[in-house]
């Protein structure tokens, strides 16, 4: 009997394996099944990010991002502060990527209409049309865009649209070690993204933040645990290490 139980539970476990390995893809699949059109978004739970940059690396591998360029990076800060007369030293990490803004300043400036927002909310660049004028690079308030020196076109995070269209998760989400990145459909109230967002808002109305809210861009990358000191341009000492100063 105990054997049987063991057998059954093992069988149940084996049956569950594909679902576990496809793990994070589950909310996406259920989202795909939802009615109506998608509105893709990401939630970054900064409290869970360990600053491992696994997302940075997986994005580079997935999207063949050239040396010294980044579609996503986890900005890392050393913070020293006085709390109750004691000096505290800590690290703050902040995953950054294109916010796929609902009001994206990068789109109207494009002289040839090469960059646009898809129906599902993803902001993309039509590589066949882009003339590489870099106007969109200037217009993005988040420094999310760059000129790709391999293609000589504007480049940025696409939420891994090629993967999303195939029912997969963005590479950074798939790889996220700390489980800090959650991707999903804002239009799917039962999906994990909405459940996490709604739960956070229930516990604390201001828990969910976006970067530079005053710029009116209406980002679709939301943050939990976002320290206001890092919400806009960071007041501090410039980076000690910047990739472009190495290699290349």
């Amino acid at each position, binding site marked *: 009997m105990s054997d049987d139980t063991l057998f059954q539970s093992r069988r149940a476990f084996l049956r569950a394996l594909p679902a576990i390995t496809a793990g994070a893809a589950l909310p996406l699949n259920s989202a795909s099944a939802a009615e109506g059109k998608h509105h893709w978004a990401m939630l970054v739970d900064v409290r869970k990010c360990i600053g491992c*940059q696994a997302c940075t690396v997986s994005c580079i591998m997935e999207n063949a991002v050239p040396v010294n*360029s980044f579609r996503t*990076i*986890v*900005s*890392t*800060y*050393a*913070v*020293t*502060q*006085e*709390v109750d007369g004691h000096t505290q030293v800590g*690290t*703050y990490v902040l995953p*950054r990527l294109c916010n796929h803004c609902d009001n994206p*300043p990068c789109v*109207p*400036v*494009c*002289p*040839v*209409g*090469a960059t646009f927002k898809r129906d599902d909310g993803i902001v993309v660049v039509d590589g066949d*049309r*882009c*003339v*590489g*004028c*870099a*106007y969109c*690079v*200037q*217009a*993005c*308030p*988040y*420094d999310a865009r*760059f*000129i790709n020196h391999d293609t*000589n*076109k504007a480049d940025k995070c696409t939420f891994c649209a090629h993967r999303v269209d195939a029912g997969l998760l963005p590479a950074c989400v798939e790889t996220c070690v700390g489980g800090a990145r959650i991707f999903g459909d804002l239009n799917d109230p039962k999906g994990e993204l909405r459940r996490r967002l709604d739960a956070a808002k229930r516990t604390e109305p201001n828990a969910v933040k976006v*970067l*530079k809210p005053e*710029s009116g861009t209406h980002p679709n990358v939301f943050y939990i645990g976002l320290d206001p*000191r890092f919400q*806009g*341009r*960071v*007041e*501090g*000492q*410039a*980076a*000690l*290490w*910047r*990739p*472009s*100063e190495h290699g290349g």
Partner: protein
Amino acid sequence: MSTSIVEVVNVAREVSWLPWAVQYFFLIGLSVGCFLLTMPWFALRRPAWERASRLALLGALACGLTAPVALLADLHQPGRFLNFYLHPNFGSWMAWGAFFIPLYLGGLALYTWLILRPDLKRLADAGGRWAGVYRAFAYGGHDSLGAIRIAAVLALTGAALVALYTGMEVMVVHARPLWDTPLLPVQFFITAVAGAIGLVLVLDRAIGDGHAAQGAHLLRLLAATQILVLAVGAAWLLLGVTGLSPTHANALAQVAPSSAWQITAVWAAGSAMVTLWLAVRHPAWRLAAGLIALHSAWMMRWTVFIGGQEIPKTGAGYYHDYHLPLGQDGMLGILGTAGLWIAVLIILISVLPWAGQRRVQA
């Protein structure tokens, strides 16, 4: 609670509007400024302006013909420039630019041709190897002030639109507070006119007879531009310091802490004052005044474009990593446009009867 934040890891975004862009905005500004200086003689027939206007016409053409090359070179996909005409997005100032530039240059070409027709005919009549070519271009050689004035209005419309779009294109970039100030287009325009006067003064020494400033009030005009430069600069600072204009306050806040920016501001104000002083007090030093005005126009654009892109939008501090590369995206680009400009100027001087009667008689 005191906090200190040190950025440990972040990306440095490269300058993506390259020195080519600085060259473009500099050259197209000079061209527009020079064109304005051609009008007192060619469209309004003020005799005192003849020398200055003829030199200015050369300047307008040489800069106007070189500028689009620099602009194309700034595209990372120059071969696709046709997309500007196949898929224009008229919500973008840059898209309009693709139409304003040909309008201006077309107007300028027509204006120049109508001006030079009689002189081309004289050249043809004088005979020589190219007489046939000159005769064909002279196309009868009629001199029609009315036609010149119509072309001047066309070119002036183009010039105004070019000045407008180059200023607006940069001003609307809210993501860069330093660019996002209503005074920027004004500053571009005034420094362009000042630079154009400077160019005329330099050309006057190089290929003219050194008398272009006589009676043409060139130096007084130069002084006026410098007073405007200083006044607008002071207004910019005042709006920022007092916080009367939040956009200027934002712009100021971005650059105020940096000693490099403080030096730049002092440098710019100092250059304007020296130019003003030379123009008013030492007319004999007008070549120096002209050179400084030209340098100020270039520096202003370099600072706004390259310096502006050195300010991170989200990261801390400044990028400070822009070292002018020696390749075609940097030094070679600047030298290349300068070389092209000189070549175009030499060709224009050699083939066009730019000096009118004077040269034909000589």
